[in-house]
């Protein structure tokens, strides 16, 4: 998301408006998504009240869990998002700058409420929407985030993001191997087969472009993923 709208880019750039967040969230919730992630990639302090309004409207409109990230810099920010109805907050650069924030939020809301998002490329963690490489190594950072109380890692491959050529399975497996918490694979989903491949490696896979392009295609995508022998939760399309 950016400035209260849903946007999508390729490798984090060239953002296009793809719709209204509440409308899309409702559509995906009704269409068989297991959970949603709302990331405000243009978060500025001025945007925080807009984001909270969106979070509250989404919470009242859907019946599946959702994570909210972007602009969470303090326990107070996290509390506001959770009180507005989100199940989890996602921390990215704020966790890198202040790793103790992971523990503080986990102590108050439980580990299941804290996702640490890692934008990974060339072995290191990137910040600023994937544009700026840091010196922090991806795998040790993922391990540290887990030790500090993160309940889940949202692992995005910058190279794969928006390319639709499949997830970075090697990276996903390598990060998963050093952790005892679940890992969400992100970046690169272009087909049901890609999602199925990711779900053989890890617990969850995030999709964006393929559904934003075709929001009514989600029930069909679920069936197609299942046709690759992946057991998704039992779900019935509404009559």
């Amino acid at each position, binding site marked *: 998301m950016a400035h209260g709208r849903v946007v999508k880019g390729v490798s984090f750039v060239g953002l296009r408006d793809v719709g209204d967040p509440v409308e899309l969230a409702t559509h995906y*919730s009704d269409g068989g998504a*297991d*959970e949603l992630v709302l990331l405000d990639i243009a978060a500025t302090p001025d945007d925080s009240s807009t984001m909270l309004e969106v979070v*509250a409207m989404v*919470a*009242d409109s859907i*019946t*599946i*869990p959702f994570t909210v990230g972007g602009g969470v810099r303090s326990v107070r920010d996290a*509390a506001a998002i*959770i*009180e*507005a*109805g*989100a*199940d989890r907050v996602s921390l990215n650069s704020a966790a890198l700058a202040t790793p103790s924030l992971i523990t503080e939020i986990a*102590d*108050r*809301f*439980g*580990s*299941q*409420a804290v996702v640490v998002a890692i934008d990974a490329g060339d072995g290191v963690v990137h910040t600023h929407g994937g544009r700026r490489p840091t010196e922090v190594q991806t795998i040790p950072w993922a391990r540290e985030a887990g030790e500090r109380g993160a*309940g*889940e890692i949202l692992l995005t491959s910058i190279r794969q993001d928006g390319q639709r050529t499949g997830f970075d399975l090697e990276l996903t497996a390598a990060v998963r191997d050093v*952790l*005892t*918490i*679940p890992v969400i694979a992100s970046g690169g989903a272009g087909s049901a087969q890609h999602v199925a491949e990711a779900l053989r490696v890890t*617990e*969850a896979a995030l999709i964006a472009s393929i559904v934003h392009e075709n929001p009514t295609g989600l029930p069909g995508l679920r069936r197609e993923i299942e046709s690759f022998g992946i057991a998704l*939760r*039992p*779900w*019935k399309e*509404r009559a």
Partner: protein
Amino acid sequence: MTSVVVVDYGAGNTRSVRSALRRLSYESVLTSEPSAILDADIVVLPGVGSARSAMEHLTSTGAVTAIRERFSAQRAIVGICLGMQLALDRSEEDGGVAGLGLIPGEVRRLSGGRVPRLGWQLVTPVNEAFYFAHSYFADTPCATGFSEEVTAIVESDAFIGLQFHPEKSGDAGLRLLEQCLTRA
């Protein structure tokens, strides 16, 4: 009209529970006021925060006594996730916390598999999938529903507890929550 109190422990997401109640045409009040807890037709203990801070908050407001009194009088209480776990004698969470002691048993840390246990899991004997997000589980003789051998539903007198989040479990969750409320 049925009066529903959602117990406020001063932390976390109570909005989603209240929004689910509203979908089922139940208006709810969010409070930790003992008299409101005693008077309501149905009390919901939502699933938010950590065991210690929840118990401290409930003790300081006098809600603990009101909830116990309500349970003794066999009046309906629905516990969700942490709200279910608090009903047991004690919890291993936060270095050991005494619970409400409504139902026998202990809350223990999950072992085996990835923890926290996040995601949709099939619950027997309901035979539907619901959304779980937990690191601890209820070890109690009052378990009546299971998911991968983990306690998913707990029942004792007028208390019904759910380890999963019915308010986050789509249509199946709303149907089950409605059953809990109408049974109550």
